[in-house]
């Protein structure tokens, strides 16, 4: 019997379920019309976390070392930081 069949759930299935759960949380935040910087950064943080789960869990980058290990995470942090700054500044303008 392999390690896979001994597990109660495949790691990729667990990642999938977490992604679905986080997506539902994001949707509920939008559905309830929640506002404010805290909510905005919470939703943005969830998106970045989901992105990292895709990179590590689905794209298989957790098994990669060097540049490619961090390429997706760097992209996520870069985009997240710039978008976060823009939303933060716009809250001051509004």
């Amino acid at each position: 019997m392999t390690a896979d069949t001994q597990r109660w759930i495949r790691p990729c299935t667990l990642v999938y379920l977490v992604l679905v759960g986080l997506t539902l949380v994001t949707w509920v935040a939008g559905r309830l019309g929640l506002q404010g910087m805290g909510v905005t950064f919470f939703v943005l943080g969830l998106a970045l976390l989901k992105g990292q789960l895709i990179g590590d869990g689905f794209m298989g980058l957790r098994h990669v070392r060097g540049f490619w290990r961090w390429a997706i995470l760097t992209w996520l942090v870069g985009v997240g930081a710039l978008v976060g700054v823009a939303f933060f500044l716009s809250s001051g303008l509004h």
Partner: protein
Amino acid sequence: MLVGERSMTRGSNLPDTTRYPPGDLAVWIFILAELAVFAIFFVAYAFTRMQHVVLFDQYQATLDRNAALLNTLALITASYFVVRAVAAIREGRVEGCRRWLWAATGMGLLFLLIKSTEYAHHLGEGVRLSSNTFYMFYLSLTFFHFMHVILGVIVLLVLAARVGRGCYDARDHADVESGASYWHMVDLVWLILFPLVYVMH
């Protein structure tokens, strides 16, 4: 990719560590280029919104968040099916790989159907690229992503057909890994696009 050089974790058929990601390195360079373009789109959206906060919030409220949720779940599910397809071919289960790829294709087509319905609704209400700055970003960003989903579905269809013809096995399946990586990129981009355009205000 030198799959044979990788050390494999017993049972999972996944490599312990490797220097390069799964699939063809050229596809990964293409993926990085695509991600750079989408990053520019996302950042441009966020900084343009700074000048039009009220307008963006007003017209964001006209979007169908339920459809966006279904689309997000469709893409995530497709990605999961693709992961299972790659795992199947790595384990030499060719028929299983083919079935997972067809299932992923179905989810991709579901995304295209839902998004097309959304576009038809907006166009029916007279929404155009020139309507206002928010809709210009909404239509161009989501349609650019829509085109990527179409390409991804075509890739999955071709892979499913080739797997069915016995073109890949447990030792030779770099094309399947490359196609899978591209599909995950399409999913990854939507996971940022969904909250940014539909939720954050």
